[in-house]
């Protein structure tokens, strides 16, 4: 206990709040006077939000289906009508043969083809099972999978006699928790918050520190009475402010424009967001000690922080679908935990009892990265 108290005393003695305020002010003006970066910082997430919010819907509709009907019978035409009745398909009769279907796909005139054999009528009425063939353009495998399953559904429920029903034993009653309309904006607003917070707290700060080094002004600061921790805190404070403000705006837009709910505790969100920002800052500081120029700092920060957030944190692509190796890697990515936290709090009303595991991981990452960052920074300063 005494150890902790002396440590706190040491820290208090090490930093002068007045100097920090001066440094923070200078950095603040630096940022304000750079309108282009600011514009991008505020505009980019909004644009992403709008696009992802409105656009990310994977429902397939109006699939152009080429129908090659060799049978040309009452039943085959009935089958074709069944496809036409579905909103997913736009069938059209195709006079050519299977060889010309590839050309149809290449010229993007159709995404799938239905081939009805010439003895379809006879088969359907005689055997219990009549056979048809579908060919799907699987260049987009996801769409292809969905198209295939829709085809199967239409075909499975097709009955030759009017009013006949296919045999069925068990019904499935589906229900949706937390996001009954399956709005994609609910999913992406937290994701963009996580992205922008990481971008500002790590990418921007690492470039800013690297720029100070590149321009030589870092040296000047270091020979003044200002101490290393003050430099860092002063530099970093405005970015925290902007980051939180930016994330707040995203959230507000999400809530107002898309109706994103806020089910859980505001306090919990703020606390854990600060923790996340701390992790981002540590990463930014760490990277800045490795890079001598801004360009290098930027590329490093991109690879180490921004890209993983976009690709590996579960922002868009589900972690469970990735190969094992990558899944292990995701344990190191702070955004992964933050996303669980934000999505949980906003959309599900999760509390600390639900989210203590990701919160713990975030805390551990924060300590680890911060410790390393401070250690490295001290090293580069002392030589």
């Amino acid at each position, binding site marked *: 206990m005494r150890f902790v108290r002396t440590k706190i005393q040491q820290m208090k003695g090490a930093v002068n709040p007045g100097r920090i305020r001066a440094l923070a002010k200078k950095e603040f003006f630096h940022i304000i006077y750079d309108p282009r970066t600011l514009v991008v910082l505020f505009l980019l997430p909004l644009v992403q939000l709008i696009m992802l919010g409105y656009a990310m819907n994977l429902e397939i509709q109006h699939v152009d289906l080429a129908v090659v009907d060799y049978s040309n019978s009452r039943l085959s035409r009935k089958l074709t009508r069944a496809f036409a009745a579905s909103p997913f398909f736009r069938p059209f009769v195709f006079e050519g043969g299977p060889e010309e279907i590839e050309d149809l796909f290449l010229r993007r005139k159709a995404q799938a083809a239905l081939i009805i054999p010439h003895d379809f009528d006879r088969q359907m009425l005689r055997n219990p099972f009549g056979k048809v063939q*579908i060919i799907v353009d699987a260049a987009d495998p996801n769409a292809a999978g969905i198209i295939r399953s829709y085809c199967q559904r239409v075909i499975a429920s097709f009955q030759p006699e009017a009013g006949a029903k296919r045999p069925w*034993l*068990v019904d499935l009653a*589906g229900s949706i928790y937390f996001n009954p309309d399956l709005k*994609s904006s609910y999913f992406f607003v937290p994701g963009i918050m996580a992205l922008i917070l990481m971008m500002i707290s790590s990418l921007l700060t690492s470039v800013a520190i690297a720029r100070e080094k590149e321009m030589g002004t870092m040296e000047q600061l270091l020979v003044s009475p200002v101490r290393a921790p003050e430099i860092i805190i002063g530099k970093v404070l405005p970015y925290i402010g902007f980051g939180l403000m930016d994330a707040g705006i995203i959230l507000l837009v999400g809530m107002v424009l898309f109706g994103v709910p806020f089910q859980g505790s505001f306090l919990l969100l703020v606390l854990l967001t600060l923790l996340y920002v701390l992790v981002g800052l540590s990463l930014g500081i760490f990277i800045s000690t490795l890079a001598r120029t801004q360009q290098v700092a930027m590329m490093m920060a991109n690879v180490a922080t921004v890209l993983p957030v976009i690709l590996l944190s579960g922002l868009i692509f589900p972690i469970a679908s990735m190969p094992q190796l990558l899944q292990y890697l995701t344990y190191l990515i702070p955004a992964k935990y933050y996303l669980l936290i934000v999505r949980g709090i906003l959309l599900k009303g999760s509390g600390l009892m639900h989210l203590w595991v990701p919160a713990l991981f975030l805390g551990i990452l924060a300590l680890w990265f911060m410790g390393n960052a401070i250690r490295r920074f001290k090293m580069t300063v002392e030589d």
Partner: protein
Amino acid sequence: MRVLLAVIHKEFLQVFRDRPMLAILFLVPFVQLFVFAYAVTNEVKHISLMVVDFDRSQESRKLIDHFVKTEQFDLKIVSDNVFRIRDEMKAWHVQAALVIPPDFSEKLVRKQRPQVGFIIDGVDGNAGIMALAYARGVLERFHAELLPTPQYASLLRQTHQAIVEDRMWFNPDLSSQQYMVPGIVVTILTIIPLMLTAMGIVKEKEIGTMEQLMVTPIRKWELILAKILPFLILAYVELSLVMAAGVLYFQIPMQGSYLLLALLSFIYLFAMLGMGIFVSTVTQTQQQAMFVAWFSMVVMLLLSGFFIPIANMPDVLQKITYLNPMRYFMSIIRDIFQKGSSLQHLWGDVLPMSTFCLLIFGFSIAKFQKRIQ
């Protein structure tokens, strides 16, 4: 010519002297390739499932078995408390839940169509829809197993069924990598010329050498060419490396013509280099250049059909995508790789892309002045 050679010589000297940058330039695309190829997938697998079985009969266990057998669902929790479902979802332990009522087997045997509940976590809408579709699929397989048995076969006798044989062309394994890797090629051919050209020119502005250069009689086209040539070459080198990795390691099929690919890449690269020049004229610092380039790239990417098929976007956005050169290039690349499309098939994309590329490049050149401000 003399001037051009002198400037190109200088540019290459500078690029090769910047060791850390060089390392990054050659490492990053590979890292991106591998990570993208493995992480970027629209497939939904290993959905964590919770089962609440009130019936606990042979039939219900058979149904659960069908769910567990697939790669699509991972059984995580078995419970007898329905109210736990919400909490487990809140804690992200499960994404879906199957609820089997107590009278399931009883109704089933009497052919009275029992109902099972399937609850999905709607937060990830895409995964939710897929989970529901998978559940229906599982049910189909359950029926396929049960219906032919003597108990229920009578139902079948009264009806006729059509069955379907399906063929997946161009990508029989439905490998998402095959779909994504060509897209990665496009992103590499975008980010390198765009960001590096912009930052390179702005760096000279920042340190003052651009001013010195402007005072010399160097002609505008010589200056621009010297700035874009190294990155043009670099982009091609990276393209070859990434394609080699894609084809050899990931075994992505490359059905089409390499020559056509190289040619169309050339057109696209000019647009991106042009955009890089444009960005350099509207920014003052490297940081700004980086952010503006990044911003442009993200917007183009979102509107290109890489993550989200264009047909799924709202009409307004679809119309905007027609102005995006990346949109055309993305579908060209994918078709060349997967379908072996030749020029005659691709005209619909090549023409607008070339037009836009020329316009962008021309406009950027016009905007670039051998003057300050």
